[in-house]
């Protein structure tokens, strides 16, 4: 299965945020079983960039294990609080493989 994060940020904030995601969030996500499968960015306005990040998990059991681990990890809450302080919009979708 995949988890897709879409975060819209000011154009000056987008790529620094993506760098911080790779450095700060991704290592913990990997320990929770999430593999960073890819990331993309695109202008969605004159001064706004949407960053899309796709994570992969091997199966449903891994998903629930990840959920339990994330719920107990204060650094996860801190990461998204920091993100929400700079993001214009944000969404996360959990998707089955078609």
């Amino acid at each position, binding site marked *: 299965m995949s988890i897709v994060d879409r975060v819209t940020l000011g154009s000056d904030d987008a790529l620094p945020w993506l760098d911080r995601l790779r450095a700060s969030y991704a290592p913990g996500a990997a320990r929770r079983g999430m593999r960073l499968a890819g990331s993309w960015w695109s202008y969605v306005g004159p001064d706004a960039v949407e960053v899309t990040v796709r994570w992969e998990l091997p199966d449903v059991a891994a998903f629930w294990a990840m959920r339990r681990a994330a719920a107990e990890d204060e650094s996860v809450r801190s990461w*998204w609080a920091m993100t*929400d302080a700079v993001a214009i919009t944000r*969404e996360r979708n959990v998707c089955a493989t078609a």
Partner: protein
Amino acid sequence: MTRWVAQLSLDTGVTLEGLPGTAGRHLPGSVGGGDATWDMVGARLPDPGVRGVRVVDAVALALLCSARVSLDGARVKRTLLLRVRTGTPPEVQEQFESELAALPRHVAAIRSWALSRVDHSLAPSRWTHVWEQEYESVDGLRGDYMRSPYHWAGIDRWFDGEVPRSIVEPEIAHVFYTAAGPVLS
């Protein structure tokens, strides 16, 4: 009459046979509750009256919706106690309730079920909602229920703190026990 769900603390070796209603020790995998769940109907929740059995948490239920499905013999009764975040707009909470109540359409292993709000006028509680189901066996809960894409891709977004529109506080009680007969039906 009001339906009550109580969490019990049990001393070692006590039995629950003397309790009115239905009660059972929690099966492995239960988290966030007491040692056992006690389901009963009455104007109020009585003292258990059994030595070594104490009520540690009790909720009075105000039923929102339910379904009764015929099932003979023993079954697994599961209770999820949850708290919707204070300040959640009513229309958002109602959408959550509507989507949660649709779960049995996607998980055939769910037999009888009930979704209730907690009636705080009868008993103060930290919980806001109670989501109950019966299953023929624990495999229905651990397997079908947990593996349903509607559960992990749809309903869980209301619970997942990493999803920006989640509304359920992380603390929950997910408890289940074997009941000899119907609890919700």
